[in-house]
């Protein structure tokens, strides 16, 4: 159990940053190249993934609601398009989650560089 508790201190900016000095530390990190890279890398994955899943998901109620006859088309035996499309949503959601976890390894690596540079986990 003990290994989950990290003993190193956060040597970076103080948690409560009222002074202009500590605020400028956050500004410095925010404008650093490493941080800009991290944000860009995140955006490249998260924005398209979010848009894709929202469009794919809302296609279901829209099609089922406004084209019920089309969605009732039987595809395999008695199984219709509506059911298959609904079922596909589960697998698409899992797929996106899996891809995100993979992409997030890069986020973690970039974030770790920033943490290392700014005092956390040094030595």
């Amino acid at each position, binding site marked *: 159990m003990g290994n989950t508790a990290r003993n190193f201190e956060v040597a970076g*900016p103080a948690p409560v*940053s009222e002074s202009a000095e500590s605020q400028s530390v956050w500004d410095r990190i925010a404008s650093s190249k490493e941080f800009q890279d991290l944000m860009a890398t995140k955006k490249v994955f998260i924005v398209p993934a979010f848009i894709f899943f929202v469009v794919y998901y809302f296609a279901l109620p829209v099609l089922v609601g406004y084209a*019920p006859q089309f969605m009732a088309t039987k595809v395999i035996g008695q199984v219709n398009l509506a059911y298959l499309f609904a079922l596909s949503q589960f697998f698409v959601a899992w797929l996106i989650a899996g891809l995100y976890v993979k992409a997030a390894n890069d986020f973690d690596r970039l974030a770790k560089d920033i*943490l290392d540079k700014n005092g956390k986990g040094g030595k």
Partner: protein
Amino acid sequence: MNISLVMFLVFIAITLGITYWASRRSAGSAAYFAASRQIKGWQNGIAVAGDYMSAASFLGIAGIIAFQGYDGFLFSVGWLVAYLTVLLVIAEPLRNAGKYTMADVLAYRLKPRPVRAMASLSTLTVSTFYMIAQMVGAGALVKLLLGSMVTYNQAVIAVGILMIVYVVFGGMLATTWVQIVKAILLMAGTILLSFLVMAHFHFSFGEFFGAISQVTYHDAKGQQVVKDFLQPGLRYKPPYGPLDLISLGMALIFGTAGLPHILVRFYTVPDAKTARHSVVWAMVLIGSFYIMTTFLGFGAATIVGPDFIKGHGGTNMSAPLLAQALAGNIFFAFISAIAFATILAVVAGLTISATTSFSHDFWTNVIHNGVERRPGEEVLVARISAFVVGAVAIAIAIVLGPTANVAFLVALAFAVAASANLPVIVLSIFWRRFNTAGAVTGLGVGLLASIGLILVSPSLMAIDPPTVVGTARHLIQAKAWFPLENPGILSIPLGFIGAFIGTLISHEPTSQHKFNELLVRSNTGLGAEKATVH
């Protein structure tokens, strides 16, 4: 002695054992509110699933599919896909930048007192509404499952007392483990039930879907009809059905990521990476469960039949009656006990999120300016408020009674979460210009729009025939002004617009100066709260 009762008592004994064990590890705020942030990723994933899959999903969805076929399955889809919003947008920034509640994230760059006060109000609204729906459901359910052995009031009191005991003595640690035990039981029961349904159809999907395509029952007029239950449109009919379906989807997709009892779970793990893994674990469990509602719901429609279910307790009894039809009374008792466990785990999660918000946001930070006057005060206040919340929930559930029309409260909870909580969390993380006035107006408009629209929706506004009496009657006896049961399609944009307008009409340089701090914290985990050692 009734087998169901024995199984209920076994579950209660196990959970009280967990609570006793947890009570000795719950000293201090981080231990009490966040289980010392030492819950492992897979454990938290199972607990999120246990926190989320309420009796509405287990009994409710099985019932809706059993009576209205395919349209019921659409609920199942939304309830899983919603976790992508949690995964991609909310879980990690929240864990990185917060401490115990969602308001912690807002308070970094905005003025803490007004923001926390509003966020706390919204949290308490979502949690208590959701809880009342669960309590009334629990009372009615336990009464049905145990028959004449207990009354509705006794059942409500028992559920209320148990949830108070878990939360007051065991805090987040006990709540987490009650949720884990419940999620495992629920998955086991659902897998077993699905297996038996397929065995009934000789493990032939052709035979199973063949039976679904011709379900025979008597409609409202007493006419015998045969319907293809895979066909869309049995529940959501024109003219407003399709819009209601989209509105429901919006409330689920954007509301789940704003449900306080789900959000607090991400503070129980050591870091953002573990929070991410716990969402994935939860998605595997939740997705598998909701795919299996195919077997539960359509199984009940084909094997038991809507006519029989209607005569034996109604839609909510679909899953237990299916168990009885397939494997007799012992399995009925097992599935009933799981339903009971489900309710207890969810109400415990709701109670701890409500009390955390009251104690940490309102008491410590709004009233006392962020200072704990005595060590342990925050936890003490939380324990007292858990007691009060439980007592109030018991009282309201008893006043409303078993026939009360409460299903809309779940829709309301999701609508408030999606229209009030989500916009301000997202804007505070992503929009530099966002400020305190925007957060307060966003929360206020989202909350009022959701409540107002539900109040004039068909859920609360309709003309009942004189045969409907008491609390089962609609609150306002007139034609509904707003035609949809789910307000999301209008209230979510209103919440965002409220937040935008509030932001633009006021000027707050500090919130913009501090945006970089929140941006760096939420994206890197720099300075995030650590796990603590016992």
